[in-house]
C-alpha cells in the first residue's frame, strides 16, 4: 500500500481501531516511512496535550448529581400519582423524600395525612379515642403539624403524651406503639422546621426503640440520618440506626453516609457501625467491601482512607 493510503490508517492505529492485518501493515510502513512516523508523533502530542485537561467527576459531583436526580425523580413520580397509589407506595415515596428539598415537603405532608387518615379510619374499633378533637377531620383539612413536644413519658408502661401545633395545639395520648403517635413522630422527624424538635423526636424514638419501631418511623430515621441538613439531627439519627437490628436498608443508608456525608466524623461513624455489623459474619458483605475500597481510593480524609483499609485488612487475613 502506498504512503497516501496508509496515512489515513495511522490515526486509526493511534486510536487502537485496527485489526490484525491492517495493524501489521501500518506498523511495517511506520518502520520505513519517516513522514508517517511524524504523523503518529503529532497525534500522540495532541493526545497528551488534550489529556491534561480531561475533566473527571469527583465524588462530590457524583453525590450531588444523585441527590438532585432523586429530587427530580420524586417530582416526576408525583405527577403520575393518584392518592391511592401514593398510599400504596408510601414507603418508596418516603425513601425518595428528604428534608433539604423543601418543595417535596408539601407532598410528604399529603402522603402522611392520607396514611394517617387511613389508619384512623381503619382503627375505628379501638376503645381509645385518639384525641379530644376529631383528628381525621382535622387532617383532612390539610393542617400543618409543627413543634411536637413530649409532655410525659412513662418508661415502665410506654404510655406517653405528646403535644403539637396545628391551628391549635393537639394533645394525643397513647402508647409509643400507638400508630398515631408513631406517625406524628415520623412526620416531625421529617418535617418540623425546628431542628431541635426533629432532634427531640429522634431521641424519643431512640429511647423507645426496644419496644419496636414502626417501619415508617424507621424510614424517617433512615432519611434523617442521610439527608437532614442539620448535623445534630443526622448524628442522633445515625446513633439510633446503630442500635437497630442491622438489615439491608440500614446497610444501604450507612454506605451512603460513609460515601457522601460532607462531615468526616459521620463518615467515620458510619464505617465503625458497618465494621461492627460485619463482626461474627463469615466475610464482609460485597457492597460494604466495595464502598470501603472506594473510600480508600477517593476519600480526601487520610484517616478515613486508613480506617477503611484497616477494616478490610483485619477481616481478610
Amino acid at each position, binding site marked *: 500500500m502506498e504512503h497516501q493510503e496508509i496515512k489515513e490508517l495511522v*490515526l*486509526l492505529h493511534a*486510536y487502537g*481501531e485496527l485489526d490484525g492485518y491492517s495493524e501489521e501493515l501500518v506498523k511495517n510502513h511506520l518502520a520505513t516511512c519517516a513522514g508517517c512516523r511524524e504523523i503518529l508523533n*503529532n*497525534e500522540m*502530542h*495532541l*493526545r497528551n*496535550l*488534550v489529556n*491534561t*485537561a*480531561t*475533566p*473527571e*467527576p469527583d465524588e462530590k*459531583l*457524583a453525590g*450531588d*448529581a*444523585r441527590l*438532585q*436526580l*432523586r429530587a*427530580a*425523580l420524586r417530582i*416526576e*413520580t408525583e405527577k403520575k400519582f393518584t392518592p391511592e397509589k401514593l398510599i400504596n407506595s408510601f414507603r*418508596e415515596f418516603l*425513601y*425518595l423524600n428528604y428534608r433539604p428539598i423543601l418543595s417535596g415537603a408539601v407532598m410528604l405532608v399529603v402522603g402522611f395525612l392520607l396514611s394517617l387518615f387511613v389508619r384512623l379510619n381503619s382503627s375505628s374499633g379501638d376503645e381509645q379515642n385518639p384525641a379530644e378533637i376529631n383528628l381525621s377531620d382535622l387532617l383532612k383539612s390539610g393542617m400543618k403539624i409543627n413543634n411536637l413536644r413530649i409532655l410525659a413519658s412513662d418508661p415502665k408502661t410506654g404510655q406517653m403524651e405528646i403535644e403539637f401545633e396545628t391551628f391549635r395545639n393537639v394533645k394525643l395520648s397513647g402508647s409509643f406503639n400507638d400508630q398515631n403517635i408513631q406517625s406524628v413522630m415520623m412526620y416531625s422527624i421529617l418535617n418540623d422546621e425546628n431542628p431541635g424538635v426533629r432532634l427531640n423526636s429522634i431521641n424519643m424514638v431512640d429511647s423507645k426503640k426496644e419496644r419496636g419501631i414502626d417501619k415508617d418511623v424507621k424510614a424517617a430515621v433512615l432519611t434523617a440520618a442521610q439527608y437532614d441538613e442539620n448535623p445534630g439531627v443526622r448524628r442522633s439519627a445515625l446513633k439510633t440506626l446503630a442500635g437497630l437490628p442491622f438489615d439491608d436498608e440500614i446497610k444501604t443508608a450507612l454506605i451512603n453516609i460513609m460515601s457522601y456525608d460532607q462531615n468526616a466524623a459521620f463518615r467515620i461513624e458510619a464505617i465503625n457501625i458497618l465494621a461492627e455489623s460485619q463482626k461474627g459474619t463469615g466475610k464482609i458483605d460485597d457492597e460494604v467491601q466495595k464502598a470501603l475500597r472506594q473510600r480508600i481510593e477517593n476519600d480526601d480524609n487520610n484517616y478515613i482512607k486508613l480506617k477503611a483499609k484497616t477494616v478490610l485488612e483485619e477481616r481478610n487475613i
Partner: protein
Amino acid sequence: MKLTEQDLVIKAKAGDYRAFEELVYAYDRRVLATVYRFTGDPDDAKDLYQDIFIRAFKGLKKFEFKSSFSTWLYRIAVNVCLTHKAKAGKRNYESLDDPYPDSEDSKTEQYEDKSGSLSPEKSLLGSETQAVVRKAVDSLSPRLKMVFVMKHYDGLKIKEIAEMLETKEGTVKKYLFEAVHILRGRLAGYLEN
C-alpha cells in the same frame, strides 16, 4: 438474591423506582463522566445527568430489549448532550459545514489573547493550558465534540460510537478526523516539540 439487569428493567418498567435507582447506580458514574467531559462544567453536567435519567425513566415503558439497556441509556445520553443548549455566549463552535476554518476567522479571536499572553512551553500542564485545551474542545460542534469525547476520553470503539449515534462507522471516522484536524489547528502553538 441479586436481581439481573433484565429483572430490574422489568420492575422499573412497572413503575418500581427503587429498581430504577439500582439501574441508575449501575451506569451513572460512566454517564456522568461522559457528560462532564462533554460540557466541562459541573453544573451543566449535573443538569444533563438529571435530564438523561429523567428521560430514561419516562421512556422506559417504550424500551423493548431490542438493544442492551446500557446502549439504550447511552443513546439517550448522546441525544441529550447533542441537544443541550449551552448558556448564551458560552459556546462558540464551528459548524460541520465549515470544518476547516481559516485561522483568520473571527471565531479564533478568543484564543489570540491567550496565546499572546503566555508562553506555551512554560505553561504546559498548567491550568492556563488546560483552559486553552478546554476552549479548543468546546469550539467543536456538538457532534464532533461528542465523537471526540467518546473516542478520546471515554475510550469507546468507533463501532460503539456509531451505534450510539445511530450512524455509520464511516461517518464517525469522518467526525473524528475533523475534530482532530480542528484541534490541531487550534492548539498548534502548544504542539511544538
